[in-house]
């Protein structure tokens, strides 16, 4: 296991400046920031990013991308996250769906979906978890039955973030019976969330908001050409997808707004020594974790596949996001109110309520640790 520190090139630094300038113009001073991936969805904002060429950056130009690097995407993403920008409409498609379709999809799927994703026109959700399949993802029961020209899909997905706002979701399901190895016979189907037989039921989130859903699939017809990649390769595709998901800036910057608004709302001379200590402690760790995460993006650009490192960084990053909440809370002494208070206070309440999910979504800490520890043992 090796993490090599990396330096941004001049060109990469220029990209950063451009993004900062763009955000300064697009996000007004009274803009209400969100927390990381949980920030709001705003299709207009996503389209503006697309217009600058900042969605699907690593996708080849002929599919609407910019043929840029994972590091470039990292830079854009960390700038957006550090401002709490509303990236909910494009985040999953940009991070996950577009690369998956590029890697495994048919040529027709690439031409149909990817340009629309890079234009900010199509939003995707992930249809992996089910009531009885969480960490043990290969036990999914949603199943497709072969019919003329396609598949009839039946089953129930849960925790599907954004299904009520998005256009499609990639559904992991069983397309051939169990043959002794549970990892065989699974496929990913691209399902239109507005198709007949699809019912999206909200599951109220802990803070009372509408974030994720139950999606019930009843005899949903999915044409053959919407099988993502190869029939029966779903497990391999999904697990390689999780590697994209793991270690990016979205895994350590969710609570950055807390530190920023804490500083913004306190006179420097009014900080107690404890407050100063916490600010220093957190900042030093941001600096370190960011470099770990960035070095993974660089390794990917150099052709590496740092899956174990990515799992480790996700674990470090998401735990740190939670610790940040605890450390800052320790030096402020306020009672939380979800509806009123300064920006900092509102963010602290929001972070407290959504914080537990940081170490759940995208694979729990426990399961990641077992991935990482197996890797360490090698």
């Amino acid at each position, binding site marked *: 296991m090796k993490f090599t520190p990396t330096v941004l090139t001049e060109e990469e630094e220029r990209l950063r400046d451009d993004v900062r300038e763009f955000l300064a113009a697009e996000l007004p001073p009274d803009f209400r920031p969100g927390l990381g991936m949980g920030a709001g969805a705003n299709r207009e904002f996503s389209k503006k990013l697309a217009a600058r060429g900042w969605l699907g950056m690593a996708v080849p130009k002929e599919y609407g991308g910019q043929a840029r690097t994972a590091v470039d995407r990292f830079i854009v993403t960390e700038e957006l996250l550090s401002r709490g920008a509303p990236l909910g409409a494009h985040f999953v498609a940009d991070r996950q769906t577009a690369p998956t379709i590029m890697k495994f999809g048919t040529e027709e799927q690439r031409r149909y979906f990817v340009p629309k994703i890079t234009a900010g026109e199509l939003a995707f959700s992930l249809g992996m978890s089910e009531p009885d399949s969480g960490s043990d993802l290969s036990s999914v029961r949603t199943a497709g039955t072969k019919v003329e020209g396609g598949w009839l899909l039946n089953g129930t997905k849960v925790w599907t973030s954004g299904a009520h706002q998005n256009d499609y979701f990639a559904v992991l399901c069983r397309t051939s019976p169990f043959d002794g190895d549970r990892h065989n016979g699974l496929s990913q189907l691209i399902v239109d969330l507005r198709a007949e037989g699809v019912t999206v039921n909200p599951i109220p989130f802990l803070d009372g908001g509408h974030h994720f859903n139950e999606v019930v699939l009843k005899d949903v017809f999915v044409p053959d050409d919407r099988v993502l990649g190869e029939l029966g390769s779903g497990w391999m595709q999904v697990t390689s997808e999780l590697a994209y998901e793991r270690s990016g800036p979205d895994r350590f910057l969710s609570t950055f707004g807390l530190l920023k608004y804490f500083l913004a709302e306190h006179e420097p001379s009014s900080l107690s020594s404890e407050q100063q200590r916490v600010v220093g402690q957190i900042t030093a760790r941001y600096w370190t974790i960011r470099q770990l995460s960035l070095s993974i993006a660089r390794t990917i650009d150099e052709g590496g596949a740092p899956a174990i490192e990515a799992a480790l960084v996700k674990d470090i990053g998401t735990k740190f996001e939670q610790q940040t909440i605890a450390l800052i809370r320790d030096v402020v002494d306020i009672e939380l109110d979800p*509806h009123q208070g300064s920006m900092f206070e509102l963010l602290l309440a929001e972070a407290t309520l959504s914080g537990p999910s940081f170490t759940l979504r995208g694979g729990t800490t426990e399961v990641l640790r077992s991935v990482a520890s197996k890797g360490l043992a090698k």
Partner: protein
Amino acid sequence: MNQDQSAIASALRAILADHSTQESVIAAEGPGFAEEAWKVLGEGGFASISIPESAGGSGGDLADACVVLHEVGRAAAAVPFAEHTLLAGWALAEAGRALPEGVSTMSTRSSESLSVTAADGGAVLDGVLTRVPWASNAAQIVVLADLDGAAQLIVVPTASVTIEPGRNVALESRDLVRFDKVSVPADAMVAAPASVTAEALELRAALSRAALISGALERVTEVTVRYTAEREQFGRPIARFQAVQRHLVRIAEQSVSAQMAVDAAATNAVTGLDFFDIASAKIVASEAAGIVSAASHQAHGAIGMTKEYELGQLTRRLWSWRDECGSEASWSRRLGAHLAEEGADALWPRITTGLAPERRNEKVAGR
């Protein structure tokens, strides 16, 4: 727990099982107050435990009241027992007054931002009180204030103040109250006896939150143990995985620690409030609240993040109560300053005073 306390606990647990169901806890989030549960507690005589019978209460002591709070915390019931009974009811009873009709509340912060001046034999109150629990649901707010050098308890009807509703993250009422030159007549005031001080109120309030936390922690432990035994992944209950077992152990350790601290502090408080005890109990309970919330959510996976599931009703309370009446950080600082002043030689002896001997005897005698 002595026999009386066990009887209180089991009777209350049965009542709250019927009147503080998951559905009613969610329903109470609208008004910020569980009116039905509060009514039932009143009818059963539980709402005035620790207030002497001579003042219209059901009798009992502060430790008995902490048993009530423990059960209220377990059941996630949004009822004003701490403010109504432990603060307002107690203060008035000490001054020889009976509790007025309806919900009473009391703020421990009145000296901060409220000016009280004498006028026409009564008084005029001007200023603001922040984060007053249950103000929107109360009939009156009891204020402890200094009037011409003498401490007074003043009963102010909520009809005469302006209330801007606020909530904690469990959506219980925590309101801003504006006193806009509110006049109260002489009979709304009574001289506060020496026992009723701002410090005493603050300690009682902190103890109340520690007791609520201990109840919620106990319930979170049960819910998490049950869920992880039922939930299967990879073909077996997740409780069989070492990583999950670690969460369970952590939760249980924290929960029993908080329980112990609260129990000792409450029992000792029966014969006199003690700063060290109550600060320690609040520190240990508040810290446990954070650790247990995190571990229990982790052990539950996504189901715990839903509004309807019981866990969130408890963890949102833990996240609220750990800050209310002083967070562990603020009590730690105060306790640290206090210990520094007492000197190094006093440290070990103080630590080894768990349940104070004279009080332990009573507790044993009570069994």
